[in-house]
Structure formats: C-alpha cells, structure tokens
C-alpha cells in the first residue's frame, strides 16, 4: 500500500470507529483532497463529517479548535504545509496553549495534517519543511512518518490522543513509498522512534523523506566498511531521546539529516541534546546535512535537497574527524 493510501485508510478506520472524528479543509470533500488523501470519505461519511471549507486557514484551524472543545475530534487538512502560516496565530497562541491556560478545563486536541517537504518541483511554496517552528512551540506534538505502516499507525494514535498534533506528511513519498500496512485498527505510539538499520560506527538521525536518503547513504557507506545506525524518530517532538542517546553512546558519532534550512532547524536541537548528553562519548562533532539557508529554490531543487552523496560525505567526515 502507498503512504497516501495508508493515510486515507487511517482516516476511514478512525472515522468508522469513532463518530466524533471529522475531517475539514479546502477541497477535502467533493474533490477528495488535492493529493486525494480524503478520497471517498465524504461519500461514505457525509458532508457534515467531511467538510469542504472556504479558503481561510484561520477559519479552518480556529473552527477545528472550537469543534474539539465541544466534543468532536477534528482532523484538519492544510493543502500544503506552506499554507499553514495564515493560521500560525491560531496554532501557537490558541491550539498549543488552551490546555495550559485553562488549567486543563479546555483542550484543543486537533490533528493538523499537511503535506510537507520537497521533491515535487514545487518551488518556494510547495516544498518547505516547517517542523522547527512547531517543535519550538510548547504544547504541540510534531509527527512525521516515513513509511505507510507508520503513517497509518501514527495518524491513528494522533487522532485518539489528547494533545494537538502537527502531522507532517512527506509528499514526495505519498506514492513512492510502498509497504505492508496492517488491516483494520493499527496504532503506533507517539514518542517512540524506530531503528531503521543497525550499525556500530555512526548514528544517523533522519525522518520523513530523508529516511530513504539515509538508507541509500548507509548502503554506500557499508560498501566502504562503515556501519551506519539509522534512527527515524517518527515523533519529532517529544523526541525519543533515549533511543538516540543509547545509540550515540555506542557509536560515538552522530549525523543529523533534514530538508529544512539548517539554521535553527531541528538538527540544531538534536546536535545540542546529543553533545549535552553524550559529550564524553563523542569522537567527532555532531554533523548536520540539511537544506540551505535560502528560500526553497525551484530550478535548483535537486542541489538544495540533501542527497545520499552529501550524506555520505558527512558520514565519512565524522569517521575521519
């Protein structure tokens, strides 16, 4: 099953299980979503639960918050994560703080789904990776799957959970990532990472569309005798630090890989945490392979995005340090 079908499967399964789950966003109803993630849901669950909204992200997110306060389980789709920003105030000032400021009297357990990342020739506004903005915002969980099974299991857990979740979907993997997906209800717990590949020499942290890039780089490294351990955190925040810390204490080396611009990206936090917690084990600085600190370019997309070659260079640099 493809990753996008796994998303649809999770939505359909959770909607069938719990009548309070509903989906809202632009073009999610009659059209089934611009990426077809909600295909067939409106026909099956009706327009009151699969809601085509006007073109206003403040209204979508803000209305979802009110729906969540009044007993529904709204799953918002924002067409591209680049178009969340009009709703940024509703997310950071309202959704993220509702539980805290009301001392738990009110919560805003909204799941906000958005296709994210590059690789589709989308230029500035159909390619960005915004995870760091949300990770820096207390009160939000930030999730990004890299396989169909994780997409279904993590999204289902997010929908059943009690906290607001920013659920970023690597759009380039929608149809290229295929894999076994358990039928029926399937949960993958939030906050637990996945060891994609075991290795003794260097720990490589990568998520979303960078996970397969990490795997190719690890393949190449292996043929050069370097054993790379790949960790996909899956839930970016709260991070499975225990898994990363244990691995780096074994390998003594860490590389973090992401599409987003380098400066103040999540890679900076991973690097800061690892050097705080594994300082005496580190044989080399934590290295970062990331997008560059420019707006996301159209023509140079392939050079902008980290690839196996750049990743391999960083792995080698860490080994040779």
């Amino acid at each position, binding site marked *: 099953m493809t990753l996008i079908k796994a998303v649809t499967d999770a939505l359909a399964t959770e909607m069938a299980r719990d009548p309070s789950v509903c989906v809202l966003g632009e073009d999610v109803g009659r059209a089934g979503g611009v990426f077809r993630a909600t295909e067939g849901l409106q026909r099956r669950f009706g327009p009151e639960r699969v809601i085509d909204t006007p073109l206003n992200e*403040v209204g979508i997110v803000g209305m979802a918050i009110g*729906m969540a306060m009044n007993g529904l389980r709204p799953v918002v789709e924002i067409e591209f994560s680049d178009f969340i920003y009009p709703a940024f105030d509703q997310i950071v000032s309202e959704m993220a703080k509702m539980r805290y400021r009301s001392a738990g009297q009110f919560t805003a357990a909204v799941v906000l789904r958005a296709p994210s990342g590059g690789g589709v020739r989308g230029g500035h506004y159909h390619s960005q990776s915004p995870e760091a903005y949300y990770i820096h915002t207390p009160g939000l969980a930030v999730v990004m799957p890299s396989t169909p099974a994780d997409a279904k299991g993590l999204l289902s857990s997010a929908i059943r959970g009690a906290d607001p979740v920013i659920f970023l979907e690597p759009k380039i993997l929608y149809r290229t990532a295929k894999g076994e997906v358990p039928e029926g209800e399937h949960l993958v717990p939030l906050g637990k990472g996945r060891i994609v590949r075991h290795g003794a020499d260097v720990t490589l942290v990568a998520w979303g569309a960078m996970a397969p890039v990490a795997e190719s780089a690890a393949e190449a490294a292996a043929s050069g005798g370097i054993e790379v351990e790949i960790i996909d955190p899956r839930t970016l925040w709260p991070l499975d630090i225990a898994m990363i810390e244990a691995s780096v204490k074994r390998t003594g080396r860490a590389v973090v890989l992401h599409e987003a611009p380098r400066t103040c990206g999540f890679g900076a936090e991973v690097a800061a945490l690892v050097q705080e917690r594994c300082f005496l084990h580190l044989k080399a600085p934590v290295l970062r392979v990331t997008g560059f600190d420019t707006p996301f370019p159209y023509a140079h997309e392939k050079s902008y995005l980290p690839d196996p070659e750049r990743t391999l260079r960083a792995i080698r640099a860490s080994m040779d340090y």
Partner: protein
Amino acid sequence: MTDRDVVSALLPDGAIDPANDPGLPEAELLSLHRYMVLLRAFDEKAVALQRSGRIGFFVPSTGQEACSIGAGHAVREGDWIFPAYRDHGVGLVRGYPLSSLVGQILGNSSDTTRGRQMPNHWCDASIRLVSVSSPVATQLPHAAGAAYAAKVRGERIAVLTTFGDGGTSTGDFHAAMNFAGVFRLPVVFFCENNRYAISVRVEDQTAAGTLAEKARAYGFSGVRVDGNDVLAVRKVVGEAMERARGGGGPTLVEALTYRLGPHSTSDDPTVYRTGEEVAAWREKDPIRRFAAFLRGRGLLKDLAEEEAAAKEIVRKAVEAAEGAPPVPLSGMFEDVYAEIPWHLVEQRASLLSGKG
C-alpha cells in the same frame, strides 16, 4: 428595520418602549441590576488593587455593564460563551463565582486556573465559559466551531461570543463570520462598539457606516442596539440567541456603548480623549439609567444601599482570597500536555532541585 436604526427600550422619562421590552419578571429585573452594580464594584476594587500593587494589571468594564450583563443574561443552560477580556460580566451573570473572579486576578492558589494567566483571562468549564485569550478576536472562530459541533449533533443551543469594535478589523472576525454564514451556525457575534480600540477611534478603524452592516458581506443580518440600555441588549441578544437555537443561523449585534475608564490599568486615556466626551457619556451611565426605570416601577428603593452592599461583598471576597498561599512551583510544568513528557520532567527536576 435597517441596520442603521438603533434598538432601545429604556426611554428618557424612565418609561419603557413596549416594542422592545424583553418582558422579564420583576425578580429578574432586580437581579440584572444587582449584577450590574456588583460588576462595577468589582471593577473598581480590581483597579484599586492594581494601583496599590496587589495585582499586576486589570481591564475594567466600567460603563459597559449593560452590554456584558444584558448579553450574559440571554445565555441559557447548555449555551457556550467565548468572551473577550473585558466581559467578565457575562460570566458573572451566568454564575461564575465572584470568588473565582477574585482568585484569578490574584493568581494565587485560590485561582481555579492555577495562576497561569494575567488578570481578565478566566474560564469555567462548568458553565461553558471558555478561556479568555489576549490576542484580539481569536475566540470568534472557536465560537463557530463549537456551534458547528452543536449543530451536527442537533442540540438546541446557541453560542455567544463577545468582542470590541477593533475586533471587527481582525482576520479572525472575517474568518468566523464567513464560516458562520456558509454553515449557518447557531452563533451570536456580540460586538461592543465602545468607540475606541485603545486610542484608535472607530472612525479610523473602518470606513463602513456601521459595524452591523458588515454582516451582509457574510450573508446574514446585523442589528444595532443601545449598549447602555440593559433591557434593549437583553431583548436583542435574547432574540438572536433564540433564532440561533431554532436553526435561524448567526446574527451580528453591534452594541453602541462607551468605556468610561482606561483601556486597562496601563492606559492613560487623557492622551486621546477629551474630558467633555467622557463627561457626556457619564450622563448616559447604564446603571443610573436602569435604576431610574426600576425606581419608576417602584422596584428599587435605595441605590446607594445596593452599592454599599456590593462593595462589601467584593471586599469580603478579596479578603478571603488574598491570604491564599502561592501556587506550587511544580504546577508550572503540568497541563502543557495531557501527560508530562521526559523533557518537562527533567526541567521540573532541575528547577525544584535547584540544579537547573
């Protein structure tokens, strides 16, 4: 009637316009009045507490009591309230305890919200009084969402959200009004046009003739009401709420009123308003105006006595709450998430152990 006419009930001579009489029983009339007096007493006390440094900040509603009390009185069991920071009166008349109001502004362990927010940012889930936020008008889309949920469940309730003239300029107003219109939601948008957004005159806030007519852009109707006339507010909001409960969709209510005090205790209104303007509005004091009507009906004996009683109630409430211990430090790390994640456990430990 057009959206330029202004509904009023209390006539200058102390009589009432039968057309706009909400027809409340005498006990309710008296209770409306008592709440207005209590609200004023609370606001004056809160400002005094701030001046003497016992609380950090306060936003008074003095002059706008007819709005918050009149609108709040139209709210029924089961309805939701998404108020602005200046509308503690709405909660008060709905049964939000004075002790909680006082506790919240003190921010000590008598605050049911654990000292999390500044004064004026209260909530009480038991009466569906939703947590107040500082960013202007962010509660409006939430009100639409709560109304949507009630509507799809077929509940016969309405949602009241309150905000100011400045709030009509926000993107949240545009979003919430449009969604309410498209989905025909049971929500009443109650706009207290007190003529100022801090220092900015409503004439500089919009070039529209009235705020009420903005509703047309969203396919529903707007009504203007005399915001210093508690019975007219009660009548107009009551009808709008009832229409919403009955499936008639949303209404925008523009209440024409005036803030007699500062925007907040941090504000000096003399830099942007003339004394004459304020004095003219003092003449229209909503409490005195309603008292005159009650006196005419022989329902009110001594206003001064009422006011003294209210002051005493507030004084006692403050006295009772002020001694409460501070909120415990560990609480700072709770309610960020449903469960406390590892990083907050570590941060709490580092703070409490004095090691962090």
